[in-house]
């Protein structure tokens, strides 16, 4: 099992590399693999290999496609890890950071800033993501506080139900805002569907740091996550302080989701699907699930972004629409298809 899983993770790593190379290369201008190699080598090592590639291709690749593809990969990976955390602590395979209300809360914040035309010069372009981040966190804190008030052990179904109710309520407010402030309708819808358009290297670096911290944090907790898969009481009997651990994980999942979506807008389904795919590949042991889900999430998001910007080129479809269009039937096949076989 252990050797098999190591091999499987290496294969997924290879697939990740292929997807990233494709995302670097495909677009209005095709950048072949050898050119990609020389461009990267030149940028990294000041190789002096300018003769091996076209200057315009280098500009397109390093300033537009690379940050975009890498950010998509990192956002997908981050959301997948947040999904693993949420599903494990809530012991619910249908849970995701969406269930906690993070995404809808972030959308509400962004929508409010848009319709009220709030402007804080010191924050500049970061106002919208910062607002989304704060309201996403506030929403999940509200969900957790309300769940805690009802049930001091913060049982899974309490949080899931509370999260669903709050999400629905918040989504209704967003719809209302879009209808009442019709001139901002397009902007609100765009944010709720997400996009990687126009993203820069600093976005990549922020997400890279967040994901690295997230992977380490989650790997440290892999045993507790394993134990919690058997239910709260079982985990407590094994020696896990479940209430404390669940609080830590919920805050972690909210933070990671907030950071992941705050630059791009909310993008659904990857956080729900990637953990399932990972478990199908490497089993239930979180030591393997965490790493695998990160790469699967990255692959899914990077592919979805590639599809979103190429399938109707030069027009671009919001990436959230692509993940939902592919993700919904895929999830039905993955979850219910396997169950009906049993």
């Amino acid at each position: 099992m252990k050797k098999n899983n190591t091999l499987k993770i290496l294969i997924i790593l290879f697939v990740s590399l292929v997807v990233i190379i494709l995302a670097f290369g495909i677009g209005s201008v095709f950048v072949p693999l050898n050119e990609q190699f020389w461009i990267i080598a030149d940028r990294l090592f000041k190789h002096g290999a300018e003769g091996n590639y076209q200057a315009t291709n280098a500009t397109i690749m390093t300033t537009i496609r690379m940050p975009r593809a890498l950010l998509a990969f990192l956002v997908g990976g981050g959301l997948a890890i947040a999904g693993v955390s949420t599903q494990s602590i809530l012991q619910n395979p249908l849970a995701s950071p969406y269930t906690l209300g993070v995404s809808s809360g972030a959308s509400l914040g962004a929508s409010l800033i848009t319709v009220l035309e709030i402007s804080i010069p010191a924050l500049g372009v970061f106002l919208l993501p910062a607002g989304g981040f704060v309201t996403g966190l506030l929403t999940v804190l509200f969900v957790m506080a309300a769940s805690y008030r009802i049930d001091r052990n913060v049982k899974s179904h309490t949080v899931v139900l509370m999260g669903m109710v709050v999400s629905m309520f918040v989504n209704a407010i967003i719809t209302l805002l879009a209808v009442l402030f019709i001139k901002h309708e397009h902007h609100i819808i765009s944010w709720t569907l997400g996009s990687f358009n126009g993203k820069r290297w600093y976005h990549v670096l922020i997400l890279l740091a967040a994901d690295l911290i997230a992977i380490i944090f989650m790997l440290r907790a892999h045993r507790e996550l394993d134990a919690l898969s058997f239910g709260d009481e079982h985990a407590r009997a094994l020696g896990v302080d479940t209430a404390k651990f669940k609080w830590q994980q919920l805050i972690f999942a909210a933070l990671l989701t907030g950071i992941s979506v705050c630059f791009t807008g909310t993008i659904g389904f990857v956080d729900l699907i990637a953990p399932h795919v990972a478990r199908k590949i490497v089993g239930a042991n979180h030591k393997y699930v965490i790493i695998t889900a990160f790469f699967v999430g990255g692959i899914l998001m990077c592919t979805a972004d590639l599809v979103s910007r190429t399938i109707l080129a030069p027009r671009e479809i919001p990436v959230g629409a692509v993940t939902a269009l592919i993700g919904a039937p895929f999830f039905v096949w993955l979850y219910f298809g396997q169950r009906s076989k049993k």
Partner: protein
Amino acid sequence: MSETSKKGIELSNVTSGYGKKKVIKNVSLFIPSGEITAILGENGSGKTTLLRTIAGLLDHEGSILVDGEEIKKMPYKERAKKISLLSQMNSAYFSFSVYETVKMGRYRFQKGFFDSYKEEDLKFIEECMKRADILDIKDEIIGELSGGQLQRVYLAQLFAQDSEYVFLDEPTNHLDLKYRVKLEKELKESRASTLCVYHDIRAALDMADNIILVKNGEIVKYGKTADIRESEALNRTFDMDVLGYLS
């Protein structure tokens, strides 16, 4: 029976339940270490709630001292060192292998970033799987096992936890006759400190050193099995002629 100097579990005025509903009412008793104690009572009498309360899994009023230490104040890993529990309602939400599931019993011994199973840990885990007779299915996925096999997997996990007190809630549920007899024999022979919820009155009287009779969340009678065997309290606990049935 206040014997704080003696090893065992002492309950003083313990009340517990679910939310506002109090199921266990003002219970005080002392469960001695090194003996088998069975909890008997009708369905819904509070047997499982009493077991879960003593295991420190439910909020409670009053005091529960495990070998002189207040359970509320013990960190969860310390509690797991003292008490292991085989629950009646076990479920796994994700598909672990039998081996991975049993290994989790060693959680309280684990430290550091990755697994830190020593050679003796792995040998012990294998021994526990042998005791539960599940060595041949160790690579199978637990979601694909029968109820009886799954019960034996959780028993092996309980053995792997290697705690001082073993709490069992209907341990013979799903087990066929062969494994039921094997488990009862093993519990008797091991002389482990065991607290066990039982439906089968005969089996409990045959196996246990002490019996707690529970009705409506209160203790009807608690004492040595020899005294309970012929006590009229059995009839009161079950609202029927238990003594006649047993004879």
